[in-house]
């Protein structure tokens, strides 16, 4: 059976499971909306200030919402023994990991990308900045899923793994956060966002080329 066929079935399976458990998806989206909406409420109607902090807040909220979903990436497959079967597959584990991360990105991060422009409106971001915000999230969140997958694999089966996962992963998210909010701020300041967007894409590609192998190694370690 060719690798692409295995990848396709794993992606289809994980998306089916996400759809049948769609409340999980909704909770992280609602979390994202609530966190990003609390700031304007707390800071008050000060257009200049909101415009200045808006991009950073939407990005931080997206980071947290994305991290919240990470623990679901391997936990259920680990609990019911499916992960064991994935480890014993004729297909390299890193390929299955890529498929799982793609499905996870679609189910957990794509909704954030789509809803982020709406949240940007609360901070009075101009329309070109809203477009850049969505684009920056679309290019940056794949690296969040990939880096997060390493953390999720390392903390698999540990007690209190959730907090440990946050401590492991959040510092590694910093470059994505910085580049992502700079891209939006550059647009509001009338500068080019392209360099930041390219760097975000480069980070995601670098993560795609390295993370799956690290995840596969971490998963094997957690079983030995």
């Amino acid at each position, binding site marked *: *059976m060719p690798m692409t*066929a*295995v990848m396709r*079935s*794993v992606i289809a*399976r994980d998306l*089916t*499971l996400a759809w*049948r*458990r769609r409340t999980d998806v909704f909770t992280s989206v609602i979390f994202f909306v609530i966190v990003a909406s609390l700031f304007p409420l707390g800071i008050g109607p000060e257009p200049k200030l909101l415009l200045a902090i808006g991009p950073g807040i939407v990005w931080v909220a997206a980071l947290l919402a994305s991290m919240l979903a990470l623990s679901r990436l391997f936990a*259920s497959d680990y609990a*019911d*023994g*499916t992960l*064991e*079967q*994935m*480890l*014993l*597959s*004729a*297909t*390299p584990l890193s390929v*299955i990991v890529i498929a799982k991360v793609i499905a996870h990105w679609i189910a957990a991060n794509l909704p954030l990308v789509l809803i982020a422009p709406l949240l940007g409106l609360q901070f009075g971001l101009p329309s070109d900045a809203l477009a850049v915000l969505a684009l920056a999230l679309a290019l940056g969140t794949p690296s969040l899923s990939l880096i997060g997958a390493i953390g999720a694999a390392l903390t698999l089966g540990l007690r209190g793994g959730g907090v440990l996962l946050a401590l492991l992963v959040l510092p590694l998210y910093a470059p994505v956060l910085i580049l992502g909010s700079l891209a939006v701020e550059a647009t509001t300041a009338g500068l080019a966002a392209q360099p930041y967007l390219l760097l975000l894409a480069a980070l995601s590609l670098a993560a795609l080329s390295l993370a799956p192998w690290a995840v596969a190694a971490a998963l094997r370690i957690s*079983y*030995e």
Partner: protein
Amino acid sequence: MLEVHQLACARGNRTLFRNVSFRLEARSLLHVAGENGSGKTSLLRILCGLGAADAGEVSWRGEPIGVLREAYWREIVYLGHANALKDDLSATENLCMACAISGRWTTTASARDALAAFGLAACCGLPVRALSQGQKRRSALARLSLSTEAPLWVLDEPFNALDAAAVKHLEQLIGAYIDGGGSVVFTTHQDAAISTRVTQRVDLDALSATAEVAT
């Protein structure tokens, strides 16, 4: 085919077993016996390459399994204690997915036939969470009848939670598979009729007893 040389496994300070050696040829049925906690599951996991042995080596057709990796996993089927079923998928979906993950292509129709052979024709469309423990075990075992071309099955307590009819069907399945050239390593606590076909036995209790005498 499968060669195990001087295998040892420890959990913490306790040695579960050591000096486990055997050779498994085609058409053989190996029964791994031992009390609870004697290391049967650990041994089976090491045989599959899921666990690491503290000493010794497992080779497949003359090569260590740690080197073969995917080439070895293509040839074995492992069914552990966990059924590897997703509660939200139906038995048919689960079976198709299990085959896809292991790298074997299967159609929905053949998956349904395999489930029907295990007496699950009526409930193969239901989400697995609605099935009983025995029915779940059966839907996990149905994977075996779609994997007869793999030369080695490693089965951890396959007869658990099964009723008499399912036990009989599984025994027939294993019997036919061995006649067809396959070999099986399994553990069980039940006096199954399949025991008449057992060609080899590894008794972990006896092994640990001799190990204690030796030390």
